[in-house]
């Protein structure tokens, strides 16, 4: 089990000590051309989570490859590069330019930019032809049948899935009754996403058995364990990193305690356990023994 950051929730060059607490660092999404991102205000806190509409601000492929990637390599943390675009060729061209990294995450689900014209499966298939690196498709739980999308990207050659991205939401200023965010809507993140993340990981694991990086509302070690029990192999931290830059170390400690409380040795021992309602945890204990 690897503990990662969710893309867009950490800048390893500004906060290398936070990145070094992780088993891998996932970059902010890189697009072919530089993007300044959306106009401010870009974030809002609600009683149900945080909204963001950053808009894929990034230096663009050329500057990322020339300036950012070499500096990221110096951190000594395995790198995952999140790749975005507006058509399959955008994604594939960036994939083809990447090597010497752990994996590529294809951001197929940003709620804060216009969607790519091509389908998720078309994008994955085009990228598959462009790179031998492991490809993870980051999907949205907002799709009416995310398991079907998961099957389609698996058939197109994805090695894994990243689940889930933020979900589109809106906050109004109670005094003006107008949206707080300049873009209007933004991506909702935070603990209220966890039940949706669990259900999505559960459904997509059942549909594909692919390696899944689970994320969405993870605040504690118990949350990590639940995502793994739903079928995730790895887990990423998102919004919790904003509130607590020491979250990776804390979550690991809590995970250890949660495993001890269940008398389980490794997170992998409960992988996909929620798919076996007839089995009790005692069976898992015996397997471990």
């Amino acid at each position, binding site marked *: 089990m690897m503990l990662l950051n969710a893309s*867009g*929730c*950490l*800048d390893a060059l*500004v*906060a290398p000590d*936070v990145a070094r607490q992780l088993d891998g660092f996932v970059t*902010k999404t890189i697009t072919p051309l530089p993007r*300044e*991102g959306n*106009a*401010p*205000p*870009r*974030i*809002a*806190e*609600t*009683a149900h*989570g*945080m909204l*963001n509409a*950053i808009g894929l*601000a990034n230096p663009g492929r050329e500057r990322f490859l020339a300036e950012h990637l070499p500096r990221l390599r110096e951190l000594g943390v395995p790198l995952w590069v999140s790749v975005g675009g507006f058509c399959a060729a955008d994604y594939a061209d960036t994939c083809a330019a990447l090597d010497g990294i752990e994996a590529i995450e294809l951001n197929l689900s940003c709620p804060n930019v216009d969607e790519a014209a091509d389908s998720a499966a078309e994008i994955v298939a085009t990228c598959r032809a462009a790179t031998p690196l492991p490809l993870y498709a980051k999907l949205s739980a907002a799709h009416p049948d995310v398991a079907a999308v998961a099957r389609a990207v698996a058939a197109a050659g994805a090695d894994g899935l990243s689940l889930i991205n933020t979900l589109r939401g809106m*906050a109004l*200023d*109670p*005094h003006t009754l107008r949206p*707080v965010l*300049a873009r209007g809507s933004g991506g909702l993140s*935070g*603990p209220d996403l966890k039940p949706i993340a669990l259900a999505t990981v559960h459904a997509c694991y059942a549909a594909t058995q692919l390696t899944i990086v689970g994320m969405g509302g993870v605040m504690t070690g118990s949350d990590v364990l639940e995502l793994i029990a739903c079928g995730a192999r790895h887990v990423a931290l998102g*919004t919790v*990193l*904003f*509130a*607590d*830059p*020491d979250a990776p170390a804390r979550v690991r400690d809590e995970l250890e305690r949660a495993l001890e409380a269940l008398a389980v040795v490794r997170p992998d021992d409960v992988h996909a356990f929620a798919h076996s309602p007839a089995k009790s945890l005692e069976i898992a204990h015996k397997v471990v023994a």
Partner: protein
Amino acid sequence: MPRRERRNVLAVERLGPYSLLRLDRGGLDPGVPGQFFMLEAPGRLLPRALSLCLAPAGELAFLIDPVGPGTRALCSLGAGEAIHVFGPLGNGFRLDVGRPLLVGGGIGMAPLPYLADALHDPPVVLGFRSEWHAAAAALLPGAEVVVEPALVTELIAPGHDVLACGPAPMLQAVGALCPGAQLAWEAPMACGYGACYGCAVEINGVLKRLCVEGPVLSAGAERTRRDEAAVGEHLNGETSRLARGPVRERAR
């Protein structure tokens, strides 16, 4: 170096509508005046960014305007309760100035008492929305104080190195009057350490993260147009509290 520690509340003192939250300093470095800390807001998902107001021995004190759920929760803390505090963060004021004049507007006066200590009690001018708000001037004895409709910019004498914090219109006016001024800005922040990209402001025509590039910028670094929408707006009804002054405060 920034650290995150759980610190005890020593006291919360009222100053007009504002509260001075006094925390046990622990192992936290008070940093340079104008730097800020992320304070856990009880019951809220995200911490709140607050510039350090005072740093007496063993303490860190923050002046807070309770305008939203997070700042209200912070002002409602009692002695003995504990919150997580992360900092110091961002870039503070440069202290290598010959003839300093501190200029504050409303809750934007928050970083000035600590700054005045560092600069050995320079002249200070403050503007407030009302006499009630001006109660906070007690933290800067000797400051010249005006209340609206008078504007604090009317008190700026020429020939000074101006260091200012306040609402965006005030800072823009100060920057126009004093092109070399150091101005402490604000923007909504989720993390305070460059992770969220939420606090983007336009600096010299490019959107940059205020937590990394600021919050103190020289008036020459033009911060214009697009960022104005962010200032005085909110993180669910409240700004980051780095600076907020009378002009944008909501009628209560």
